[in-house]
C-alpha cells in the first residue's frame, strides 16, 4: 500500500490484524503468569528445605507427543493456505487427539509422582510440579477448545486461503502452549 513507501505511520495499513495482535497480548499475560511461578520456584528453592526427586518418565513421552501435535498443527496451517480442506480437517483432528493424549499422559505422570510419594500437599518442590503442569494443562484445555472451534469452522468452509486469521490464531496459540510446556519441562529438569 501507498503509505509503506513514506515515513507516515499508517494505522490503516497496519501490518498486524488486531485479532492476532490481541492474541499476542494475551500470550504475554500468560508468559508473565508462568514467569512469576518459575521465579517463585527459584526464590523458594534458594531458601533451602527442598526435597529432591525424579521427574516422572512419562513427562518425556508427553513432551514428544506435544511436539508432534505442533507439527500436525503446522500442516493444518499449510493445508489451509492451499485450500486443501480435507487435509485441513484431518490435521486439526490429529492435533486435537494428540493434545488430548498429552493431557492423559500428564495425568499418568501425576500418578507416577504419587507412586514416588510426591504429593500436591507436602514440600513445595513437589507442589510446584503439580501447579506448573496443572496450570499448563488448564491452558492446554483452552487450546483444545480453540481447536474445536477451528474444526467446526473448517467444516463450515470458513477457513480458506482468503480467510486465514482464525487458523493463524489457533496455530500460534497451540505452538505457544507447546513452547510453554517445553520451557516448563526443561526448567524443572534443570532446577529440580
Amino acid at each position, binding site marked *: 500500500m501507498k503509505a509503506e513507501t513514506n515515513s*507516515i505511520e499508517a*494505522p*490503516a495499513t497496519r501490518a498486524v490484524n488486531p485479532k492476532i495482535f490481541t492474541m499476542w497480548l494475551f500470550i504475554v499475560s500468560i508468559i508473565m503468569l508462568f514467569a*512469576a511461578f518459575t521465579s517463585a520456584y527459584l526464590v523458594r528453592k534458594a531458601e533451602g*528445605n527442598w526435597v529432591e526427586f525424579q521427574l516422572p518418565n512419562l513427562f518425556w513421552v508427553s513432551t514428544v507427543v506435544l511436539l508432534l501435535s505442533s507439527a500436525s498443527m503446522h500442516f493444518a496451517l499449510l493445508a489451509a493456505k492451499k485450500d486443501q480442506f480435507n487435509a485441513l480437517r484431518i490435521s486439526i483432528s490429529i492435533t486435537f487427539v494428540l493434545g488430548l493424549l498429552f493431557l492423559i499422559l500428564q495425568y499418568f505422570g501425576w500418578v507416577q509422582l504419587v507412586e514416588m510419594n510426591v504429593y500436591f500437599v507436602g*514440600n513445595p518442590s513437589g507442589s510446584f510440579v503439580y501447579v506448573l503442569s496443572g*496450570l499448563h494443562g488448564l491452558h492446554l484445555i483452552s487450546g483444545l477448545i480453540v481447536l474445536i472451534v477451528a474444526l467446526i469452522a473448517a467444516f463450515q468452509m470458513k477457513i480458506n486461503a482468503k480467510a486465514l486469521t482464525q487458523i493463524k490464531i489457533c496455530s500460534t496459540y497451540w505452538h505457544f502452549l507447546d513452547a510453554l510446556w517445553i520451557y516448563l519441562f526443561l526448567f524443572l529438569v534443570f532446577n529440580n
Partner: protein
Amino acid sequence: MSTAISTTEEVHAHGHDHDHDHEHEHHELGFIRKYIFSEDHKTIAKQYLISGILWAFIGGSLSIIFRLQLGFPDMSLEWLRPILGEWIDESGKLDKEFYLALVTMHGTIMVFFVLTAGLSGTFSNFLIPLQIGARDMASGFINMLSYWFFALSSVIMFSSLFIETGPASGGWVIYPPLSALPQAMPGSGLGMTLWLTSMALFIVSQLMGGINYICTIINLRTRGMTFTKMPLTIWSFFFTAVLGLLSFPVLLSAALLLIFDRSFGTSFYLSEIYIQGQALPNMGGSPILYQHLFWFLGHPEVYIVLLPALGMTSEVIATNARKPIFGYRAMIGSMMGITVLAFIVWAHHMFVTGMNPFLGSVFMFLTLIIAVPSAVKGFNYITTLWKGNIVFTPAMLFSIGLVSLFISGGVTGIILGNSALDINLHDTYFVVAHFHLVMGAASFFGLMAGVYHWFPKMFGRMMNKTAGYIHFWLTFVGVYAVFFPMHYTGIAGFPRRYYSFTALGNDGEAAFTDLNAFISVAAIITFSAQAIFFFNFFYSIFKGKRATQNPWKSNTLEWTTPIVPGHGNWEGEIPAVYRWPYDYSKPGAESDFIPQTVPHSATPESNLPEENDEIAKEKDIEGLLAAQNESYNR
C-alpha cells in the same frame, strides 16, 4: 442509529462487510444492549465511572468509621448500631476485628475498585477511541466482558461486607500466614475466600481491558495520528495498560498459590506454625515469597493508579493554561522511565523483612532514581503553567491540586525510599501520609479533573461551576488537613492499622490526642464535601446546562465529534490528524488554539519553518482514507 456512515454504505454495496459491529449502526438497539450489555466504549466508560463513584463512597465511609475510633477512642458509637449491628460491641465501641476489616476493605476498594477500575477503566475506555480517532475499541465484546467481570467481582467483594465472620481483615496486602489461616482471625475465613475470588475476577477484567487498550492504541489510530502526535492522555493510558498486562498476572499467581495453601493444604507460604500449642502440618513454605510476588504487582499498581491521572492532568493543564505542554517528549520519556522502573523497585516495600542489606541498597538506589522522571513531570507541569493565560475551571483547579499533592507526597517518598530511614518509619502513619498524598489523593484529583473536564463529552451537559469550586476548595484544604498531620504522628511512632495506641511509649497517645481528633474532623468534612460532587454529577446528567461543541476550546479529536457522539463516534469520515495536540497560543495564529484536524497548509501565518515541510505529507495522509475505511470493514 442515524450515524450511518457513508463509507460503510459503500462497502455494503460491494457486499463484503461481514463485520457484526457495523450491522449495529443501522438499527436501534434494545435497552439491554444499549445500556447494560453494551459494547460501545462510551457506555462502558460511564458504567465504570458510576460504579467507581459508588465504590468511592463506600470506601470513603469505611474510612470515616475507623477515623471515629482513631480520633475519638472514648466516643460511644451506639448510634451506628442500626448500620453495623453486632460490629458495635456491648460497650458501644467498634469491634476490634471489624476495625481491621474496615482498614483492609478501605484499602482494597480504593486501590483496585475506585482508582484502578474507576479511573483507568473510565477514561481509557472513554478517551482512547475518541482521542486517537477510532470508531470503537478493537474488540467491543472483550470490552463488555471486561466490565461485567469487574461488576461480578464488585458484587462478590461487596457481599463479603455482610457475612457473619466479616470481610477480609489482613490488610489490603493480605500477607500470609495471617491471611492463610482461618484460625488466625475471623476475617481470614470466608471473607478471605471471597476476597481472593473477587480479586481473581478483577484481574481477569483488568487483563481484558488492558489488552484492548494496547491493541486499540497501536492498531486503530486515524490517518496522520502518529505516535508523536498522540495526546499525553493516550500515552499514559498506554503505559498504564502495559503495566497492568505485565503485573496483574503475577498477582494472580500469588493469589493462586495462596488459594492452594488455604483450601488444599499446600505449604507455599506456610512453615512451622503453632496455633495454641498445636503444630500445623505445613512445612517448607516461605511467607517472604508471597511478599515478593505481591509487591511485583503492588508497586506497578501504584503507577497503574497514578499514570492516567498524570496524563489527564497534562491535557487539562495545557488546555486551560492556553499553552503547549512543556516538554512533550520529556513527558513521554519520563512516563516510559517510570514504567520501566516500576518493575525493579518492589523490594523497597520489604526493607524490614530481613533481606540482605546489600540487596536493600540496590533497591534503594533504583527507588531514588524514580525521583528523576517524577521531578521532570513536576517541573513540566509548573513550566506549562508559567506565564500561561490560565482559565480556572474546576478541572484545572483539580489538576493544579494534583501537581501540588504529587510533589508534597513525592518528597516523602525520597525519605521512605532510604532503607535505613525506612526501618524507623515502616508501617507508621508517615507511610500512610506519603501514599495517600502521592497516590491516593493525587489520583483522586486526577479522576475529578477528568470528570469535570470530559463531563460535557460524556453527557452533553455541563456540571455546575460554582459547586465545582466549592467542592475543590473543601477537598483540597481537607486532604492536606487530613494527611499532613499524619507525618507527625508517623514520626512519633504511631503504627498504621492499630485499633488504639494505649501501649505507645512516652505517653505518646495523650500527646497526640488532639491531632488525631483534628485529622478525624478534617476527614469527616472532606468526605462530606464529596456530597456536593455527588449531587452536582447526577443533577447535571439530567438538568445541567447544555454543552457547546468545544467548551474548553481544546485541540484534541474528541471535540470534533457531535456533542453527544453516537455509536461509531463520528458521523461521516473520521477526521485526519495533521499536527500535535498542543498548538495553543501559537504566535501568529488568529485563534489561541489550532485543533489537530487543521492542516499546516491552512495556517501559513503561524507555521514554524520545520512545519512547512509537513505540508508535503498532507497528501499522503489524505491518501490513507480508503485504506482506513477498508480496515473497518475487513
